[in-house]
């Protein structure tokens, strides 16, 4: 059996920059208690 070649992936960079502020949408929640 041929050895499975594992491709060497480069160092993974963070795909998403961590944000310090996150906005939350609360539209449509009128009357929700």
């Amino acid at each position, binding site marked *: 059996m041929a050895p499975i070649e594992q491709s060497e992936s480069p160092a993974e960079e963070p795909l998403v*920059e*961590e*944000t*310090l*502020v*996150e*906005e*939350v949408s*609360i539209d449509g929640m009128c009357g929700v208690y």
Partner: protein
Amino acid sequence: MSTDAEPVTGTSSDAGSADPAFDPGLPHRCSPRVALRPEPFGALVYHFGTRRLSFLKTPQLVEVVSGLEHHPDVHSAVAAAGVEEAQRPAYLRALAGLAANGTIEPRP
């Protein structure tokens, strides 16, 4: 690397970028129309005018926002909160966003 950026005032409201009028060299404060509720993860922020809810995701950012009124400019508030220099650009971007949505404002 020069990071001096003159505040640009204008009436155009281009979406996607930070408030062009945000000048971290000016004294700022948390808007009186905003309620800030500290939480273990940071804080909840509610703007009574825009009815917008936001999360401040680090206690350090909460400290910066809360301390704005006690410092002569934003840079001083950021430094006083102990933000590492490498993280300050990210904090300034976040503060520019908070200025754009009215959470913080220049104080007289």
